[in-house]
């Protein structure tokens, strides 16, 4: 019994709302939450886990909006991952045959202006 008490106490976290301190338990989901990161507009990521079937671009290649960067098989479909704006490919982090997890950065690009300067 004696051992349990300090352990139980330490589970409570206090948070401050409008000048009042509240003691509370935090759920596991809350504690493991990923804090907000601004989405990186220069990265093309995998939206579900899948296989890389085809890589259409090389680093340094100029690309136009709508061009297909990668053909990616997931859920019985050859999904096309396309560029959402014009630019230059900076890095390609996958090769054909790779199996990727969700949210992996596949291709990074940069805008044309940056490279011209």
């Amino acid at each position, binding site marked *: 019994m004696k051992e349990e008490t300090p352990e139980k106490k330490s589970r409570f976290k206090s948070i*401050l*709302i409008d000048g009042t301190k509240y003691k509370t338990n935090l759920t596991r989901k809350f504690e493991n939450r990923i804090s907000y990161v601004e989405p990186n507009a220069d990265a093309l990521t995998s939206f579900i886990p899948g296989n890389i079937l085809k890589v259409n671009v090389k680093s340094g290649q100029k690309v136009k909006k709508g061009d297909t960067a990668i053909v990616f098989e997931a859920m019985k479909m050859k999904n096309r991952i396309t560029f959402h704006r014009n630019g230059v490919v900076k890095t390609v982090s996958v090769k054909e045959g790779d199996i990727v997890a969700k949210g992996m950065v596949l291709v990074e690009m940069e805008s044309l202006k940056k490279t011209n300067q």
Partner: protein
Amino acid sequence: MPLKRKIQELQKRREEVLAGGGEKAIEKQLAMGKLTARERIISLVDKNSFSEYDLFVAHEARDFDMDKKTLHGDGVIIGTGTMHGRPVAIFAQDFTVAGGSLGLMHSRKITKIMDYALKMRMPLIGINDSGGARIQEGVNSLAGYGEIFFRNTLSSGVIPQISVILGPCAGGAVYSPALTDFVFVVDKISKMFITGPEVIKTVLGEEISMEDLGGARIHSEITGNAHFFAKSEIESFDQIKKLLSFIPWSNAEAPTPIKSKEPKKEYKIDQIVPGDPKLPYDVRDVIKSLVDDSDFFEIQEGWAANMVIGFGRLGGKTVGFVCNQPLVLAGVLDVDSSDKAARFIRYCDAFNIPIITLVDLPGYLPGVDQEHAGVIRHGAKVLYAYSEATVAKITLIMRKAYGGGYIAMSSRHLRADFVFAWPAAEIAVMGPEGAANIIFRKEISEAEDSEKMRRQKVKEYKEKFANPYVAASRGYIDAVIEPKESRSLLLHAINVAENKSIGGPKKKHGIPPF
């Protein structure tokens, strides 16, 4: 006092109120790229059709020096006008008057126009631009919100309710739009959240901008709270006008038909869907090749894009489309897309709009995050909504219809009225690869060349089941048709089902998996 002077006094009083929050506040409003509340109403309704009520309503708050403050119209404009020549009820919060804050009389004005709308069976359009509750009025302003939410719920499914977020809409205030049928947002102007960035920072130490927390883009792409995204207020008003051209004025009517027009020739229905079931295509092209004038009005375009929903017309009559989108996430059903489809199906059912379902999906999305996010409970919403709907339900299976996805997407078993399939349809418990691996596990593992055996068995399974004829032989499909026959058959089906009338067991209401 002679009558003339009395009229002059009325004019003077009117002018005072019509000045809103005064020049300075109006300038500030315009500098933010926003229109004033009155300008918004005028741009929305038919020309010269708006009549305003409760112009002289004043608050009765006494505390915190409120008795010395005159708030013109108490910060909200209410009235009726016409759109497409038919009556609509409108309220617009006026941010120039005390930040559009909601006090008791402010809320009474809103509930009055809500009552009119429900009683007279016309759409209600609410323009939200408010700093939130008027803190000086305490619990009275909370009472006001509650009265509004109650009426939103009462009117739900009886009259169309439309919310336009043209400014901040924070705290409790967000729940009125959330209870309405359609929410319109405008880039860089709309902001919706329960707790703002300041509170989040003090309580949790997380920093985020207002735009990233609850801006128009976030709500149209991530949360799904908004249904229509526009770049400007005027564009948003055009979207509202277009929406109202598709829907009926109440649940007692059907949408007003217009003259039928053939789809545009550039959409060739037999060339859109690739033969290889692994190749994606844009299902919106299929819809455009079916509907009148190729005019498809998409709802929630940016959110859960693996499901496409929206309105179109067939033979001049409004129909609702619920379609898998193979272009995004292979068109799977997941938590968000199930939610999106289910709510729209219920909308169509409530407002007598026939539902056309275009099917091409590999099933529900597997994965830990989906399971833990409750794909069971959310996926069940689709089954519930389709089963419950009593409007005409017409299903067209274009290609893949596997497993639970086949059942969920308005199958015969959920009492679809007509189920058609194209010759490329594959109706099976699962994809051929997966199925062959399970059924012929022994043969494959024991074979000398197991890869060759596997390919052969997959082919065998494909030939047997990856077609529409097994389902057709059981009568689960009414007809296997060529793609180019689709439009005329759908038109025919809509007309045949026009007087559909079915009943179910008596109940107060069901318990959908909310």
